[in-house]
């Protein structure tokens, strides 16, 4: 009889399982987004410096708006670029 350890999968069984997206601000209780913190804001922009949509980041509407404002403030102060290539 084959034991449980003998079962082999041809492909990785975790592939195709989507983990549910969530709003990190709600989950971890972050209430304020600092426009001076470039490293943090980098998570919400793509390689060209564009703001990523909610469908990618999973942010709730409330915090996506705040992220957008923070990114725009950072751009004004030259902390983040308006447009670029190979940001990451």
């Amino acid at each position, binding site marked *: 009889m084959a034991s449980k350890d003998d079962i082999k999968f041809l492909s990785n069984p975790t592939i195709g399982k989507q983990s549910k997206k969530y709003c990190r601000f709600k*989950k*971890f209780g972050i*209430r304020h987004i600092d426009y*001076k913190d470039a490293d943090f804001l980098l998570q919400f922009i793509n390689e060209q410096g564009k703001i990523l949509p909610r469908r990618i980041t999973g942010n709730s509407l409330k915090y996506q708006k705040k992220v957008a404002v923070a990114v725009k403030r950072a751009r004004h102060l*030259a902390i983040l*670029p308006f447009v670029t290539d190979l940001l990451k």
Partner: protein
Amino acid sequence: MKHYEVTFVVDPVLSGDEIKATEKAYEEMLKNEGCTLVHVDEMGLKQLAYPINKRSSGIYYCIEFTSPTGDIIGKLELAMKRDERLMRFLTIALDKYGIKYNADKRSGLIGKVKKKTKGKPQDEAAAAPPAEAPKAAAAPVAEEVAETGSAE
């Protein structure tokens, strides 16, 4: 009492004394108008993300202050607009979460954690503590105010 935060970028071509004088001039201006300085953050020389006035770096300062009325903001921004030593400035009104965030940052609850973690999953976990420990951070704010008061 309203809480504000003004961030500005000083031209790096100026000498060290001139840069300090620029920053002090705005501190004095705020004090003369009856504002209380909460904290002055010297963020130092940083690379700009894009060139401004053919400069590729700038010296960042961030002054957090409270004002009894909002009248000072107009005067401050006008003075900054006319000041050729400044390259950029931004004034924002802080809400209660912003005040808490800045207090936490000063007491080292936020800055330290974020430096350690560059990766995404860790960063998320690391970003959590600020919300949990706002009470601990309340005390340092009072100290800061006392310090700035004695400096006057």
